[in-house]
C-alpha cells in the first residue's frame, strides 16, 4: 500500500510519522501512544470501492422494501426504514426524528457515497483539491453513522413486540444489515488518513 501523503500525524497524541508503505495485512501503529494509524487489508486495492458500491446498491432495497410487517386484530402494517423517523416527527419530536434519520439512514448511506467518491477521485493525477475536504467529511459523517446500533434497536423492538403483535422480518431489514456490513468493511479497508485536527496550541492560557 503506497501512502498518498508524505507524513501522517497521530490524531490522539500529535506525533508525526513518515507515512508507512504497508504490505497486505500490515498495520502501522503510533510510536508514541500505540494507536492504530493505518492498516492494509488482505483484499485487493479495489476492495474498498467494491464494498462501498455493494453497500450503496443494497441501500436502495433497504430504503424501499419492508423492514418488518406487523399484524394485530386482523390488520397488517408494513414498516419501512424511515418509519422510525416518522414515528418521532409526526408526534412532535422533530429534532429527534431528524437525529434518527441522520444517524440511521443519511450518514451511513452518505458515508458509502463519500468513500466511493474518495476512491475514484483519489485515483486521479493530480489529486483534486477537493480531496482533503472530502476526507474530513468522511471522518465527520462516520462519527454520526450508527447503522449497527439501529439494527440492534430494531431487533430488540422485534422481540419486545413479539408478545403484543405478530411480527415478521422483511427483506428491507436484511438489505439494510448487508449495507451496514459493507459500510463497516469499506470503512475498515479504506486507505484513509487519520482524522485531522487543527494545529495544536497546548498552553493557550496559563493561570496561576
Amino acid at each position, binding site marked *: 500500500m503506497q501512502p498518498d501523503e508524505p507524513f501522517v500525524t497521530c490524531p*490522539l497524541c500529535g506525533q508525526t510519522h513518515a507515512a508507512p508503505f504497508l504490505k497486505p495485512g500490515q498495520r502501522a501503529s503510533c510510536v*508514541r501512544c500505540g494507536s492504530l494509524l493505518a492498516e492494509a487489508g488482505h483484499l485487493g486495492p479495489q476492495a474498498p470501492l467494491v464494498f462501498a458500491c455493494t453497500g450503496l446498491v443494497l441501500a436502495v432495497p433497504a430504503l424501499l422494501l419492508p423492514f418488518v410487517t*406487523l399484524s394485530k386484530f386482523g390488520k397488517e402494517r408494513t414498516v419501512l426504514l424511515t*418509519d422510525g423517523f416518522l414515528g418521532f416527527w409526526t408526534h412532535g419530536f422533530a429534532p429527534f426524528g431528524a437525529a434518527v434519520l441522520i444517524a440511521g439512514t443519511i450518514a451511513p448511506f452518505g458515508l458509502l457515497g463519500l468513500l466511493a467518491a474518495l476512491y475514484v477521485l483519489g485515483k486521479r493525477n493530480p489529486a483534486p483539491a477537493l480531496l482533503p475536504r472530502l476526507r474530513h467529511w468522511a471522518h465527520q459523517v462516520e462519527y454520526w453513522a450508527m447503522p449497527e*446500533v*439501529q439494527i440492534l434497536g430494531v431487533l430488540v423492538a422485534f*422481540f*419486545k413486540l413479539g408478545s403484543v403483535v405478530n411480527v415478521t422480518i422483511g427483506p428491507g431489514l436484511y438489505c439494510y444489515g448487508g449495507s451496514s456490513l459493507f459500510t463497516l468493511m469499506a470503512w475498515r479497508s479504506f486507505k484513509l488518513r487519520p482524522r485531522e485536527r487543527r494545529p495544536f496550541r497546548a498552553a493557550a492560557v496559563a493561570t496561576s
Partner: protein
Amino acid sequence: MNIWAPRASASTTQSAALAVAAVVMLVPAYTLPVMHLGILGQHSADTTIFSGVVQLWQQGLGGLAAIVFTASFLVPLLKLLGLAWLLLAANREKFRRRRPRLLTRIYGAVDFIGRWSMLDVFLVAFLCGAVQFGQLASVQPRPGVAAFGAVVLLTMLATHRFDPRLLWVDVPATPRTT
C-alpha cells in the same frame, strides 16, 4: 495556585460544558417516561427506560434486558465518568503524569462506546413508527426520550470536542519517525 483555574483551552471548556449539560439531562432521561404503549382492552401504560428493561426481563428476554441496560445505563454513566477523568487529566498535570497511554486508551474506549446508547432512541423511534393501529394499538413518544436523546448527543459531542493531544503535553514527541 487555584486548582479549579486550570489551563483554559477551547477544547476542554466546550467538552466540559457539554458533559455537564449531559449530566443535568440524565435526571429527566431516567425519571420521565420515554413512551406510551396502548393496546385496546389489554394494556395502557407509560414506560421509562428502567421499566422497559424490567419488562424485557419479565418477558423472559434476559439477554436483551442486559443489552438495553448496558446501553442505556452503564454506557452513559461510564462515558461521563471517563470524560470527567479525561477532563481532569487534561487540566491537571498530577492526574495525567506517567499515564498518557492509559488515558489515551480510555479516550478511545469512551469514543467507541458512546454511540451504543443511541440504542434506546432507535428502539423507541422504531416502536413509535411501527405500532400505529389507530385506536386498537399504538406507541407514542414521551418527553423522557427527548431527554435521553439529548444525553446521548451531548456526550457524543463532548467526546468529539475533547482533544486527546492534551494528555500528551508533558511527553516530548519522538523525532519524526517511520
